[in-house]
């Protein structure tokens, strides 16, 4: 299968006829898919599907950020999504993905953490974003990143009475946000670079490079994964490809 996928790529084609820098269509983003969550989103890219939810809580600030709220990002590869995902605590791949998403959100300064301070040194909001896979048909990384930022974009704060969170009782105050990071992962198969692989293409891939870009056009997070390396020229080309795709993906976000 791998050799066949490579031979098709050599002819500048893909199994489903897409261009190398073309995402599957349609990309469907649905907000408010779970009413108990402070914010939530479902993202479908082709047959790939993930849901993300935001829950808020309050707690003591960390010693090195007395006037700032906190972000926690989790990813679980639910067993419903693939025969390869077994039940149990998140493995290294899920933890890696969560940390890639976390870095994109944190480093782009998407969340205005200072505005999440309730009482300096005493009480701050914690933003907890959890992403669950529903169907793995390839490219869970980019689907998860889209879902995480979509869920954050429609998340609101719950009511706070006497420093106690009134869970389930939502205000109309949105979680304070600034820029929006969008991620795109470029996969390397042989010498070819493609985006948004199907599961078959992903299994044939040698390497990948994830890039998170904000409206500023600057890059806020990168992560190379899988066995193969990228030369500097390949990395530069991949970043350029990702930036182009991210411009289009950004339009899908409401």
């Amino acid at each position, binding site marked *: 299968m791998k050799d066949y996928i490579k031979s098709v790529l050599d002819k500048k084609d893909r199994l489903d006829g897409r261009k190398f820098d073309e995402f599957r269509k349609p990309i469907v983003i649905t907000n408010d898919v779970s009413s108990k969550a402070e914010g939530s989103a479902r993202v479908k890219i082709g047959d790939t599907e993930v849901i993300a939810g935001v829950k808020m809580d309050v707690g003591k600030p960390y*010693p090195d950020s007395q006037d700032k709220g906190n972000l926690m990002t989790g990813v679980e590869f639910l067993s419903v999504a693939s025969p390869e995902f077994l039940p149990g605590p998140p493995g*290294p*791949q899920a*933890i*890696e993905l*969560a*940390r890639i998403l976390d*870095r994109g959100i*944190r*480093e*782009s300064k998407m969340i205005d953490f200072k505005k999440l301070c309730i009482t300096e040194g005493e009480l701050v909001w914690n933003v907890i974003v959890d992403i669950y896979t529903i169907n793995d048909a390839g490219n869970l990384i980019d689907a998860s990143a889209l879902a995480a930022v979509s869920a954050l974009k429609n998340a609101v704060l719950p009511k706070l009475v006497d420093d106690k969170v009134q869970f389930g009782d939502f205000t109309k105050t949105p979680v304070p946000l600034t820029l929006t990071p969008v991620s795109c992962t470029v996969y390397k198969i042989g010498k070819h670079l493609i985006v948004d692989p199907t599961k078959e293409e992903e299994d044939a891939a040698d390497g990948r*490079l994830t890039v998170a870009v904000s409206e*500023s*056009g*600057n*890059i*806020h*997070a*990168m*992560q*190379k*994964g*899988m*066995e*193969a*390396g*990228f*030369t*500097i020229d390949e*990395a*530069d080309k991949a*970043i*350029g490809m990702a*930036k182009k795709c991210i411009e289009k993906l950004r339009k899908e976000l409401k």
Partner: protein
Amino acid sequence: MAYTKRFDGRKFDEMREMEAKVGIIKRATGSAMFRAGKTVAIAAVYGPRGLFPAFLQNPKGARLKCVYDLLSFSVTERKRPGPSRRSTEINLVTEQALGPVLDLTKFSYMGLDVYVYITQADAGTRCAGINAASLALADAGIPMKELISAIAVGKVSDKIVVDLDKAEEDHEDGATDLPIAMAPRTGELTLLQMDGNMSQEEIKEALEMGKKACDEIKEVQIAALKAKYSEAKK
């Protein structure tokens, strides 16, 4: 405020003073220490050896497993011992950084374990760990295509720099960390991570600076390997 002079007086493309030594742990199959400024990493290789549970065994070759951790007292505020989400990720990227240059096909069904510990941390620990691990693998006699060298490049305030220390990572204007590892002969980046804020052009420039730095690190690594055998001759 522009960053005109580095806190420790280095040039912007200048690395911290480096030191490398192999064979520091006699019990291990191979071992090494790598120091960059105040960051110190030790690494030991055990194996190839039996691998259990059996479902992990691969007829195509040995399974590489890397474990990275900080000693509890290696950082300013005590680090709780044991694995963390951060170390889980670093284990994974360390395996991917080293894997491409190893030839483990002769060691079917076996396991090859690489343990990396940071005894003193002043930023750039995953890179120091990879440098030490690469040396330890060579010291263990594992078939390798070449040595892997790693360095963190990035941006401090408005300047692109090589080998950030902790004070630079904590710069009030913000800093971008871009750790890389390079297989010098193929020119492939086997580790590439980044967090912060840089443009595409700045990243390219930083990567080119990192490539030069990796060439220098490689010389230090080779010297350390040679030193062990010239000592043995005496």
